[in-house]
Protein backbone atom coordinates (compact mmCIF):
# COMPACT_ATOMS: atom_id res chain seq x y z
CA UNK A 1 0.00 0.00 0.00
CA UNK A 2 1.34 3.41 -1.00
CA UNK A 3 1.43 6.02 1.77
CA UNK A 4 -1.08 8.84 1.48
CA UNK A 5 0.13 12.08 -0.19
CA UNK A 6 -0.32 14.10 3.02
CA UNK A 7 1.90 11.67 4.88
CA UNK A 8 4.51 11.85 2.15
CA UNK A 9 4.67 15.64 2.38
CA UNK A 10 4.84 15.41 6.18
CA UNK A 11 7.63 12.85 5.96
CA UNK A 12 9.71 15.00 3.60
CA UNK A 13 9.36 18.04 5.87
CA UNK A 14 10.04 16.10 9.06
CA UNK A 15 13.10 14.36 7.66
CA UNK A 16 14.44 17.65 6.30
CA UNK A 17 14.22 19.07 9.83
CA UNK A 18 15.99 15.99 11.23
CA UNK A 19 18.81 16.12 8.67
CA UNK A 20 19.25 19.86 9.11
CA UNK A 21 19.44 19.70 12.91
CA UNK A 22 21.98 16.87 12.74
CA UNK A 23 24.23 18.39 10.09
CA UNK A 24 23.95 22.15 10.69
CA UNK A 25 26.03 22.15 13.92
CA UNK A 26 28.80 20.14 12.23
CA UNK A 27 28.79 22.48 9.22
CA UNK A 28 28.90 25.42 11.61
CA UNK A 29 31.97 23.96 13.28
CA UNK A 30 33.71 23.51 9.91
CA UNK A 31 32.71 27.03 8.82
CA UNK A 32 34.08 28.54 12.05
CA UNK A 33 37.36 26.70 11.50
CA UNK A 34 37.83 28.78 8.31
CA UNK A 35 37.09 32.11 10.03
CA UNK A 36 39.42 34.52 11.75
CA UNK A 37 38.65 35.09 15.43
CA UNK A 38 37.49 38.61 14.51
CA UNK A 39 34.89 37.14 12.15
CA UNK A 40 33.80 34.59 14.77
CA UNK A 41 33.16 37.40 17.25
CA UNK A 42 31.23 39.44 14.64
CA UNK A 43 27.78 37.86 14.61
CA UNK A 44 26.98 39.82 11.45
CA UNK A 45 29.50 37.66 9.59
CA UNK A 46 27.83 34.39 10.52
CA UNK A 47 27.43 33.18 6.95
CA UNK A 48 29.32 35.69 4.78
CA UNK A 49 33.02 35.80 5.55
CA UNK A 50 36.32 35.56 3.71
CA UNK A 51 37.68 32.09 4.45
CA UNK A 52 41.18 31.66 5.80
CA UNK A 53 43.29 28.58 6.45
CA UNK A 54 45.29 30.30 9.21
CA UNK A 55 43.65 28.19 11.91
CA UNK A 56 44.77 25.00 10.24
CA UNK A 57 48.31 26.34 9.97
CA UNK A 58 48.18 27.03 13.72
CA UNK A 59 46.81 23.57 14.48
CA UNK A 60 49.16 21.58 12.28
CA UNK A 61 52.34 23.62 12.72
CA UNK A 62 52.35 25.49 16.05
CA UNK A 63 50.20 23.07 18.02
CA UNK A 64 52.12 20.05 16.77
CA UNK A 65 49.02 18.25 15.56
CA UNK A 66 50.87 16.26 12.91
CA UNK A 67 52.45 14.34 15.78
CA UNK A 68 49.15 13.90 17.64
CA UNK A 69 47.45 12.63 14.48
CA UNK A 70 50.22 10.08 14.24
CA UNK A 71 49.75 9.14 17.92
CA UNK A 72 46.00 8.67 17.50
CA UNK A 73 46.46 6.60 14.35
CA UNK A 74 49.09 4.36 15.93
CA UNK A 75 47.17 3.76 19.18
CA UNK A 76 43.86 3.09 17.39
CA UNK A 77 45.52 0.84 14.82
CA UNK A 78 47.53 -1.18 17.34
CA UNK A 79 44.61 -1.53 19.74
CA UNK A 80 42.38 -2.69 16.88
CA UNK A 81 44.81 -5.29 15.55
CA UNK A 82 45.52 -6.63 19.05
CA UNK A 83 41.80 -6.74 19.88
CA UNK A 84 41.06 -8.65 16.68
CA UNK A 85 43.85 -11.14 17.39
CA UNK A 86 42.54 -11.83 20.90
CA UNK A 87 38.85 -11.24 20.26
CA UNK A 88 38.07 -13.15 17.06
CA UNK A 89 39.19 -16.61 18.29
CA UNK A 90 37.60 -15.93 21.67
CA UNK A 91 34.29 -14.98 20.06
CA UNK A 92 34.49 -18.12 17.91
CA UNK A 93 34.92 -20.37 20.93
CA UNK A 94 32.24 -18.54 22.91
CA UNK A 95 29.80 -18.85 20.03
CA UNK A 96 30.49 -22.50 19.11
CA UNK A 97 30.71 -23.81 22.68
CA UNK A 98 27.94 -21.54 23.91
CA UNK A 99 30.11 -20.00 26.63
CA UNK A 100 27.64 -17.26 27.57
CA UNK A 101 29.04 -16.80 31.09
CA UNK A 102 32.58 -16.35 29.82
CA UNK A 103 31.29 -13.85 27.28
CA UNK A 104 29.73 -11.96 30.17
CA UNK A 105 33.18 -11.59 31.77
CA UNK A 106 34.48 -9.86 28.64
CA UNK A 107 31.37 -7.72 28.27
CA UNK A 108 31.78 -6.55 31.89
CA UNK A 109 34.50 -4.30 30.50
CA UNK A 110 31.78 -2.29 28.75
CA UNK A 111 29.75 -1.81 31.89
CA UNK A 112 32.40 -0.91 34.46
CA UNK A 113 33.06 2.83 34.92
CA UNK A 114 36.55 3.52 33.57
CA UNK A 115 37.47 5.77 36.50
CA UNK A 116 37.27 2.85 38.93
CA UNK A 117 40.07 1.11 37.04
CA UNK A 118 42.24 4.14 36.37
CA UNK A 119 43.65 4.63 39.88
CA UNK A 120 44.96 1.04 40.17
CA UNK A 121 46.13 1.09 36.55
CA UNK A 122 47.96 4.34 37.10
CA UNK A 123 49.68 2.92 40.17
CA UNK A 124 50.71 -0.36 38.55
CA UNK A 125 51.80 1.14 35.25
CA UNK A 126 53.73 3.97 36.85
CA UNK A 127 55.64 1.37 38.89
CA UNK A 128 56.42 -0.36 35.61
CA UNK A 129 57.48 3.05 34.21
CA UNK A 130 54.88 2.70 31.49
CA UNK A 131 52.67 5.73 32.15
CA UNK A 132 53.08 8.24 29.34
CA UNK A 133 54.16 5.55 26.89
CA UNK A 134 52.27 4.04 23.98
CA UNK A 135 52.11 0.57 25.52
CA UNK A 136 49.76 1.53 28.32
CA UNK A 137 47.62 3.62 25.97
CA UNK A 138 47.21 0.71 23.59
CA UNK A 139 46.37 -1.66 26.47
CA UNK A 140 43.75 0.73 27.85
CA UNK A 141 42.20 1.29 24.43
CA UNK A 142 42.09 -2.48 23.89
CA UNK A 143 39.95 -2.54 26.98
CA UNK A 144 37.40 -0.51 24.99
CA UNK A 145 37.72 -2.32 21.67
CA UNK A 146 38.10 -5.94 22.76
CA UNK A 147 34.58 -6.27 24.23
CA UNK A 148 33.25 -4.64 21.07
CA UNK A 149 35.08 -7.16 18.86
CA UNK A 150 33.91 -10.11 20.97
CA UNK A 151 30.31 -8.87 20.97
CA UNK A 152 30.16 -8.24 17.21
CA UNK A 153 32.00 -11.42 16.24
CA UNK A 154 29.93 -13.65 18.53
CA UNK A 155 26.83 -12.45 16.74
CA UNK A 156 28.53 -13.06 13.42
CA UNK A 157 29.67 -16.60 14.25
CA UNK A 158 26.24 -17.42 15.67
CA UNK A 159 24.84 -16.74 12.21
CA UNK A 160 27.48 -18.76 10.36
CA UNK A 161 26.25 -22.34 9.73
CA UNK A 162 28.35 -25.01 11.41
CA UNK A 163 27.74 -27.40 8.52
CA UNK A 164 30.54 -25.78 6.51
CA UNK A 165 33.08 -26.59 9.20
CA UNK A 166 31.72 -30.10 9.58
CA UNK A 167 32.17 -30.63 5.87
CA UNK A 168 35.75 -29.49 6.16
CA UNK A 169 36.33 -31.94 9.03
CA UNK A 170 35.00 -34.75 6.89
CA UNK A 171 37.46 -33.66 4.26
CA UNK A 172 40.30 -34.17 6.70
CA UNK A 173 40.93 -30.72 8.16
CA UNK A 174 41.55 -30.40 11.88
CA UNK A 175 39.24 -28.19 13.95
CA UNK A 176 41.75 -25.37 14.01
CA UNK A 177 42.44 -25.92 10.30
CA UNK A 178 38.73 -25.61 9.55
CA UNK A 179 38.59 -22.37 11.57
CA UNK A 180 41.59 -20.97 9.73
CA UNK A 181 40.73 -22.08 6.20
CA UNK A 182 36.94 -22.06 6.16
CA UNK A 183 35.52 -19.93 8.95
CA UNK A 184 37.98 -17.03 8.90
CA UNK A 185 37.73 -16.36 5.14
CA UNK A 186 33.94 -16.43 5.44
CA UNK A 187 34.09 -13.99 8.37
CA UNK A 188 35.84 -11.17 6.55
CA UNK A 189 32.74 -8.92 6.54
CA UNK A 190 32.28 -9.48 10.27
CA UNK A 191 35.95 -8.85 10.98
CA UNK A 192 35.81 -5.68 8.90
CA UNK A 193 32.79 -4.49 10.90
CA UNK A 194 34.48 -5.25 14.21
CA UNK A 195 37.76 -3.67 13.10
CA UNK A 196 36.14 -0.45 11.88
CA UNK A 197 34.04 -0.04 15.03
CA UNK A 198 37.05 -0.79 17.22
CA UNK A 199 39.10 1.83 15.37
CA UNK A 200 36.36 4.47 15.70
CA UNK A 201 35.87 3.86 19.44
CA UNK A 202 39.59 3.91 20.12
CA UNK A 203 40.08 7.08 18.07
CA UNK A 204 37.27 8.80 19.98
CA UNK A 205 38.32 7.63 23.45
CA UNK A 206 39.20 10.44 25.79
CA UNK A 207 39.33 9.48 29.45
CA UNK A 208 42.04 6.80 29.37
CA UNK A 209 44.36 8.97 27.30
CA UNK A 210 43.63 11.96 29.55
CA UNK A 211 45.16 10.13 32.52
CA UNK A 212 47.66 7.78 30.92
CA UNK A 213 49.22 9.72 28.04
CA UNK A 214 52.26 11.96 28.21
CA UNK A 215 53.08 15.22 26.44
CA UNK A 216 54.57 13.33 23.48
CA UNK A 217 52.08 10.50 23.33
CA UNK A 218 48.80 12.31 23.77
CA UNK A 219 46.03 11.50 21.35
CA UNK A 220 43.86 14.01 19.48
CA UNK A 221 40.89 14.17 21.90
CA UNK A 222 43.32 15.19 24.68
CA UNK A 223 45.22 17.59 22.43
CA UNK A 224 42.01 19.55 21.72
CA UNK A 225 42.29 21.03 25.20
CA UNK A 226 45.49 22.86 24.18
CA UNK A 227 43.19 25.47 22.65
CA UNK A 228 41.20 26.08 25.82
CA UNK A 229 43.01 28.55 28.07
CA UNK A 230 41.99 29.74 31.53
CA UNK A 231 41.32 33.29 30.41
CA UNK A 232 40.31 32.95 26.79
CA UNK A 233 39.61 30.46 24.07
CA UNK A 234 41.12 30.54 20.58
CA UNK A 235 37.81 29.67 18.93
CA UNK A 236 39.16 29.51 15.39
CA UNK A 237 41.99 27.19 16.40
CA UNK A 238 39.67 25.14 18.61
CA UNK A 239 37.17 24.58 15.79
CA UNK A 240 39.97 23.70 13.37
CA UNK A 241 41.31 21.22 15.93
CA UNK A 242 37.83 19.76 16.45
CA UNK A 243 37.44 19.42 12.69
CA UNK A 244 40.81 17.70 12.34
CA UNK A 245 39.73 15.19 15.00
CA UNK A 246 36.23 14.44 13.71
CA UNK A 247 36.45 14.80 9.94
CA UNK A 248 38.63 11.71 9.28
CA UNK A 249 36.34 9.49 11.32
CA UNK A 250 33.22 10.89 9.63
CA UNK A 251 34.76 10.29 6.19
CA UNK A 252 35.61 6.70 7.14
CA UNK A 253 32.04 6.21 8.34
CA UNK A 254 30.75 7.67 5.08
CA UNK A 255 32.64 5.17 2.94
CA UNK A 256 31.99 2.08 5.04
CA UNK A 257 28.51 3.07 6.19
CA UNK A 258 27.11 -0.45 5.89
CA UNK A 259 29.71 -1.92 8.23
CA UNK A 260 29.39 0.82 10.82
CA UNK A 261 25.62 0.44 10.97
CA UNK A 262 25.76 -3.35 11.22
CA UNK A 263 28.37 -3.08 13.97
CA UNK A 264 26.44 -0.53 15.99
CA UNK A 265 23.21 -2.54 15.79
CA UNK A 266 24.87 -5.95 16.27
CA UNK A 267 22.81 -8.24 18.44
CA UNK A 268 20.12 -5.63 19.01
CA UNK A 269 17.34 -7.63 17.38
CA UNK A 270 18.22 -11.03 18.76
CA UNK A 271 16.14 -12.61 21.49
Amino acid at each position, binding site marked *: *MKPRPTYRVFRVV*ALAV*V*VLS*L*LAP*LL*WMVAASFKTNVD*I*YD*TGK*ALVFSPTTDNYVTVLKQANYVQFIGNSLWVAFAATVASLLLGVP*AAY*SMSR*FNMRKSALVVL*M*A*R*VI*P*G*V*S*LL*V*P*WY*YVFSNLKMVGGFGVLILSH*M*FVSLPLV*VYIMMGYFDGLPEELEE*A*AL*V*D*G*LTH*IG*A*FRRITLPLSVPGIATAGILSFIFSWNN*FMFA*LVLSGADTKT*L*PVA*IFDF*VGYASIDWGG*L*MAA*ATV*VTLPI*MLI*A*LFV*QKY*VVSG*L*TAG*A*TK*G
Partner: protein
Amino acid sequence: MATVTTPARATGGASETPDTPGWARWANEHRKWLFAAPAMIFVAALIVFPLAWTGYLSLTDAEGSVRAESEFVGFRNYLDVLSDTERFWPAVGRTATFTVVALLFEVVLGMAVALLLWRPFKGQKWVRVAILMPLVATPVAVGMMWRLIFDPNIGLANQVLGWVGIGPQPWLAGQHSALPTTIFIDVWQWTPMVVLILLAGLTSLSEEPQEAARIDGASTWQRFRHVTLPLLMPTVIVAILLRGIDALKTFDILYATKGRGGGSFHEVETLNVYAYGLSFDYNEYGVSSTVLIIFFLIIIGSMWALTARRKEAHR
Protein backbone atom coordinates in the same frame (compact mmCIF):
# COMPACT_ATOMS: atom_id res chain seq x y z
CA MET B 1 27.92 -40.30 6.24
CA ALA B 2 27.92 -38.74 2.80
CA THR B 3 31.21 -37.21 1.79
CA VAL B 4 30.94 -33.55 0.91
CA THR B 5 33.69 -32.41 -1.36
CA THR B 6 34.80 -28.84 -0.91
CA PRO B 7 37.64 -26.95 -2.55
CA ALA B 8 39.38 -27.12 0.81
CA ARG B 9 40.67 -30.60 -0.02
CA ALA B 10 42.35 -29.28 -3.13
CA THR B 11 44.30 -26.70 -1.15
CA GLY B 12 45.52 -29.47 1.12
CA GLY B 13 44.46 -29.33 4.75
CA ALA B 14 46.56 -30.63 7.62
CA SER B 15 44.61 -33.82 8.17
CA GLU B 16 44.75 -35.59 11.49
CA THR B 17 46.88 -38.53 10.38
CA PRO B 18 49.13 -40.49 12.75
CA ASP B 19 52.00 -38.15 11.85
CA THR B 20 50.17 -35.04 13.11
CA PRO B 21 52.51 -33.49 15.70
CA GLY B 22 51.50 -33.95 19.31
CA TRP B 23 51.13 -30.24 20.05
CA ALA B 24 48.72 -29.84 17.13
CA ARG B 25 46.58 -32.65 18.48
CA TRP B 26 46.71 -31.11 21.95
CA ALA B 27 45.76 -27.71 20.51
CA ASN B 28 42.79 -29.15 18.68
CA GLU B 29 41.54 -30.96 21.73
CA HIS B 30 41.82 -27.91 23.94
CA ARG B 31 40.80 -25.33 21.33
CA LYS B 32 37.82 -24.18 23.37
CA TRP B 33 39.96 -22.61 26.09
CA LEU B 34 42.97 -22.03 23.86
CA PHE B 35 40.85 -19.62 21.84
CA ALA B 36 38.89 -18.04 24.66
CA ALA B 37 41.48 -17.80 27.41
CA PRO B 38 43.79 -15.01 26.11
CA ALA B 39 40.95 -12.51 25.76
CA MET B 40 39.43 -13.52 29.08
CA ILE B 41 42.74 -13.35 30.92
CA PHE B 42 43.41 -9.93 29.42
CA VAL B 43 40.06 -8.53 30.54
CA ALA B 44 40.17 -10.25 33.92
CA ALA B 45 43.70 -8.99 34.63
CA LEU B 46 42.66 -5.44 33.84
CA ILE B 47 39.36 -5.68 35.76
CA VAL B 48 39.51 -8.13 38.64
CA PHE B 49 42.64 -6.89 40.33
CA PRO B 50 41.86 -3.16 39.91
CA LEU B 51 38.28 -3.64 41.04
CA ALA B 52 39.37 -5.62 44.09
CA TRP B 53 41.85 -2.89 44.88
CA THR B 54 39.24 -0.18 44.46
CA GLY B 55 37.07 -2.18 46.84
CA TYR B 56 39.94 -2.32 49.34
CA LEU B 57 40.80 1.38 48.96
CA SER B 58 37.17 2.26 49.70
CA LEU B 59 37.73 0.86 53.19
CA THR B 60 40.84 2.96 53.83
CA ASP B 61 41.67 6.62 54.29
CA ALA B 62 44.10 6.62 51.34
CA GLU B 63 44.83 10.09 50.04
CA GLY B 64 47.60 12.17 48.53
CA SER B 65 49.53 9.35 46.94
CA VAL B 66 48.49 5.75 46.44
CA ARG B 67 51.94 4.84 47.65
CA ALA B 68 51.45 6.66 50.96
CA GLU B 69 50.59 4.71 54.10
CA SER B 70 46.87 4.40 54.64
CA GLU B 71 44.79 3.06 57.47
CA PHE B 72 41.92 0.66 57.39
CA VAL B 73 38.81 2.56 58.44
CA GLY B 74 36.07 0.01 57.82
CA PHE B 75 32.85 1.42 56.47
CA ARG B 76 33.49 4.99 57.64
CA ASN B 77 33.89 6.25 54.04
CA TYR B 78 30.55 4.72 53.15
CA LEU B 79 28.85 6.44 56.09
CA ASP B 80 30.54 9.73 55.18
CA VAL B 81 29.65 9.51 51.51
CA LEU B 82 26.07 8.39 52.05
CA SER B 83 25.46 11.25 54.49
CA ASP B 84 27.12 13.84 52.23
CA THR B 85 24.33 16.07 51.00
CA GLU B 86 26.67 18.69 49.55
CA ARG B 87 28.43 16.82 46.74
CA PHE B 88 27.44 13.16 46.70
CA TRP B 89 23.63 13.23 46.69
CA PRO B 90 23.39 16.17 44.29
CA ALA B 91 25.72 14.21 41.99
CA VAL B 92 23.44 11.17 42.28
CA GLY B 93 20.48 13.41 41.44
CA ARG B 94 22.23 14.90 38.40
CA THR B 95 23.28 11.47 37.16
CA ALA B 96 19.69 10.25 37.45
CA THR B 97 18.24 13.39 35.83
CA PHE B 98 20.78 13.33 33.02
CA THR B 99 20.23 9.65 32.26
CA VAL B 100 16.45 9.53 32.57
CA VAL B 101 15.70 12.77 30.68
CA ALA B 102 18.26 12.05 27.93
CA LEU B 103 16.97 8.49 27.50
CA LEU B 104 13.36 9.68 27.39
CA PHE B 105 14.06 12.14 24.59
CA GLU B 106 16.33 9.74 22.75
CA VAL B 107 13.81 6.90 22.77
CA VAL B 108 10.79 9.04 21.82
CA LEU B 109 12.62 11.00 19.10
CA GLY B 110 14.48 7.88 17.99
CA MET B 111 11.21 5.99 17.62
CA ALA B 112 9.68 8.86 15.62
CA VAL B 113 12.62 9.06 13.22
CA ALA B 114 12.86 5.26 12.90
CA LEU B 115 9.17 5.10 11.94
CA LEU B 116 9.72 7.86 9.35
CA LEU B 117 12.57 5.85 7.85
CA TRP B 118 10.87 2.46 8.10
CA ARG B 119 9.30 2.30 4.62
CA PRO B 120 11.73 2.70 1.73
CA PHE B 121 11.69 5.96 -0.23
CA LYS B 122 13.93 7.83 -2.60
CA GLY B 123 16.88 9.51 -0.91
CA GLN B 124 16.69 7.34 2.21
CA LYS B 125 20.37 6.52 1.82
CA TRP B 126 21.30 10.17 2.33
CA VAL B 127 19.17 10.55 5.41
CA ARG B 128 20.91 7.51 6.88
CA VAL B 129 24.32 9.06 6.20
CA ALA B 130 23.26 12.24 7.99
CA ILE B 131 22.08 10.16 10.95
CA LEU B 132 25.42 8.41 11.20
CA MET B 133 27.50 11.59 11.42
CA PRO B 134 26.85 12.76 15.03
CA LEU B 135 27.19 9.17 16.17
CA VAL B 136 30.78 8.70 14.99
CA ALA B 137 31.97 12.25 15.77
CA THR B 138 34.47 12.44 18.63
CA PRO B 139 32.50 13.36 21.79
CA VAL B 140 35.12 15.81 23.07
CA ALA B 141 35.09 17.65 19.73
CA VAL B 142 31.28 17.61 19.78
CA GLY B 143 31.41 19.21 23.23
CA MET B 144 33.72 21.96 21.94
CA MET B 145 31.49 22.52 18.91
CA TRP B 146 28.41 23.05 21.07
CA ARG B 147 30.42 25.23 23.43
CA LEU B 148 30.86 27.70 20.56
CA ILE B 149 27.27 27.39 19.39
CA PHE B 150 25.94 27.91 22.93
CA ASP B 151 28.31 30.77 23.76
CA PRO B 152 26.02 33.45 25.28
CA ASN B 153 27.68 36.33 23.36
CA ILE B 154 28.84 35.00 20.01
CA GLY B 155 26.99 31.68 19.73
CA LEU B 156 24.66 30.70 16.92
CA ALA B 157 21.99 29.51 19.36
CA ASN B 158 21.27 32.96 20.76
CA GLN B 159 21.44 34.46 17.26
CA VAL B 160 18.74 32.07 16.06
CA LEU B 161 16.64 32.87 19.14
CA GLY B 162 17.11 36.56 18.30
CA TRP B 163 15.58 36.08 14.83
CA VAL B 164 12.36 34.80 16.39
CA GLY B 165 12.39 37.52 19.04
CA ILE B 166 13.49 35.51 22.09
CA GLY B 167 16.12 37.07 24.35
CA PRO B 168 19.58 35.54 24.83
CA GLN B 169 19.88 32.52 27.13
CA PRO B 170 22.93 31.63 29.28
CA TRP B 171 22.92 27.95 28.11
CA LEU B 172 26.05 26.20 29.41
CA ALA B 173 27.03 29.26 31.44
CA GLY B 174 23.84 29.33 33.51
CA GLN B 175 23.70 27.62 36.88
CA HIS B 176 20.33 26.05 36.13
CA SER B 177 20.51 25.80 32.35
CA ALA B 178 23.87 24.00 32.15
CA LEU B 179 22.58 20.50 32.90
CA PRO B 180 19.62 20.72 30.47
CA THR B 181 22.00 22.03 27.80
CA THR B 182 24.38 19.09 28.25
CA ILE B 183 21.36 16.77 28.07
CA PHE B 184 20.47 18.43 24.77
CA ILE B 185 24.00 17.72 23.46
CA ASP B 186 23.72 14.08 24.52
CA VAL B 187 20.34 13.81 22.78
CA TRP B 188 21.80 15.36 19.61
CA GLN B 189 24.69 12.93 19.53
CA TRP B 190 23.01 9.70 20.60
CA THR B 191 19.43 9.77 19.31
CA PRO B 192 20.87 8.45 16.00
CA MET B 193 22.08 5.36 17.87
CA VAL B 194 18.53 4.65 19.05
CA VAL B 195 17.23 5.29 15.52
CA LEU B 196 19.62 2.70 14.05
CA ILE B 197 18.78 0.07 16.66
CA LEU B 198 15.01 0.58 16.39
CA LEU B 199 15.23 0.64 12.59
CA ALA B 200 17.03 -2.72 12.68
CA GLY B 201 14.24 -3.98 14.92
CA LEU B 202 11.46 -2.62 12.69
CA THR B 203 12.99 -4.13 9.54
CA SER B 204 13.10 -7.55 11.18
CA LEU B 205 9.37 -7.48 12.09
CA SER B 206 7.13 -9.69 9.99
CA GLU B 207 4.51 -8.00 7.82
CA GLU B 208 1.62 -10.32 8.67
CA PRO B 209 0.41 -8.79 11.95
CA GLN B 210 0.47 -5.37 10.25
CA GLU B 211 -1.63 -6.66 7.35
CA ALA B 212 -4.07 -8.42 9.65
CA ALA B 213 -4.57 -5.26 11.71
CA ARG B 214 -5.03 -3.21 8.55
CA ILE B 215 -7.68 -5.58 7.23
CA ASP B 216 -9.42 -5.40 10.61
CA GLY B 217 -9.62 -1.63 10.04
CA ALA B 218 -7.14 -0.49 12.69
CA SER B 219 -6.01 3.14 12.34
CA THR B 220 -2.34 4.05 11.94
CA TRP B 221 -2.08 4.96 15.63
CA GLN B 222 -3.88 1.78 16.73
CA ARG B 223 -1.55 -0.31 14.57
CA PHE B 224 1.48 1.35 16.14
CA ARG B 225 0.17 1.17 19.70
CA HIS B 226 -1.20 -2.38 19.63
CA VAL B 227 0.84 -4.16 16.96
CA THR B 228 4.19 -2.53 16.21
CA LEU B 229 5.11 -1.32 19.70
CA PRO B 230 4.53 -4.58 21.59
CA LEU B 231 6.46 -6.53 18.94
CA LEU B 232 9.28 -4.00 19.04
CA MET B 233 9.43 -3.84 22.85
CA PRO B 234 12.42 -6.21 23.27
CA THR B 235 14.45 -4.05 20.84
CA VAL B 236 13.37 -0.87 22.64
CA ILE B 237 14.67 -2.32 25.89
CA VAL B 238 17.98 -3.29 24.28
CA ALA B 239 18.30 0.31 23.04
CA ILE B 240 17.56 1.64 26.54
CA LEU B 241 20.05 -0.81 28.05
CA LEU B 242 22.89 0.07 25.68
CA ARG B 243 22.26 3.81 25.80
CA GLY B 244 21.55 3.76 29.53
CA ILE B 245 24.92 2.26 30.46
CA ASP B 246 26.72 4.92 28.43
CA ALA B 247 24.50 7.78 29.61
CA LEU B 248 25.14 6.91 33.27
CA LYS B 249 28.87 7.01 32.58
CA THR B 250 28.84 10.19 30.44
CA PHE B 251 32.12 12.01 30.93
CA ASP B 252 33.56 13.42 27.71
CA ILE B 253 30.96 16.04 26.80
CA LEU B 254 30.61 17.15 30.44
CA TYR B 255 34.37 17.58 30.79
CA ALA B 256 34.66 19.31 27.40
CA THR B 257 31.86 21.79 28.05
CA LYS B 258 32.26 22.53 31.76
CA GLY B 259 35.77 21.42 32.67
CA ARG B 260 36.81 19.97 36.04
CA GLY B 261 34.27 19.36 38.77
CA GLY B 262 31.36 19.97 36.40
CA GLY B 263 31.73 23.77 36.47
CA SER B 264 32.38 26.28 39.24
CA PHE B 265 29.05 25.45 40.97
CA HIS B 266 29.30 21.73 40.07
CA GLU B 267 26.30 22.35 37.78
CA VAL B 268 26.91 19.21 35.73
CA GLU B 269 28.86 17.15 38.26
CA THR B 270 27.55 13.61 37.83
CA LEU B 271 28.85 10.62 39.79
CA ASN B 272 31.45 9.82 37.13
CA VAL B 273 32.73 13.42 37.01
CA TYR B 274 32.70 13.59 40.83
CA ALA B 275 34.67 10.35 41.16
CA TYR B 276 37.16 11.47 38.51
CA GLY B 277 37.73 14.74 40.35
CA LEU B 278 38.17 12.99 43.71
CA SER B 279 40.73 10.63 42.17
CA PHE B 280 42.76 12.87 39.92
CA ASP B 281 42.22 16.45 41.10
CA TYR B 282 42.08 15.92 44.88
CA ASN B 283 43.79 12.51 45.17
CA GLU B 284 41.17 11.40 47.72
CA TYR B 285 41.54 7.75 46.75
CA GLY B 286 39.65 6.29 49.70
CA VAL B 287 36.54 8.42 49.25
CA SER B 288 36.64 8.24 45.46
CA SER B 289 36.80 4.43 45.61
CA THR B 290 33.75 4.45 47.86
CA VAL B 291 31.85 6.64 45.39
CA LEU B 292 32.92 4.37 42.54
CA ILE B 293 31.80 1.19 44.29
CA ILE B 294 28.39 2.75 44.98
CA PHE B 295 28.25 4.01 41.38
CA PHE B 296 29.10 0.55 40.07
CA LEU B 297 26.35 -1.00 42.18
CA ILE B 298 23.87 1.57 40.79
CA ILE B 299 24.84 0.64 37.21
CA ILE B 300 24.58 -3.10 37.86
CA GLY B 301 21.27 -2.60 39.66
CA SER B 302 19.70 -0.62 36.82
CA MET B 303 20.92 -3.13 34.24
CA TRP B 304 19.54 -5.99 36.23
CA ALA B 305 16.15 -4.28 36.53
CA LEU B 306 16.07 -3.62 32.77
CA THR B 307 17.09 -7.16 31.83
CA ALA B 308 14.28 -8.45 34.04
CA ARG B 309 11.87 -6.16 32.15
CA ARG B 310 13.23 -7.49 28.87
CA LYS B 311 12.53 -11.07 29.86
CA GLU B 312 8.99 -10.01 30.78
CA ALA B 313 8.54 -8.29 27.41
CA HIS B 314 9.51 -11.53 25.72
CA ARG B 315 6.65 -13.45 27.25
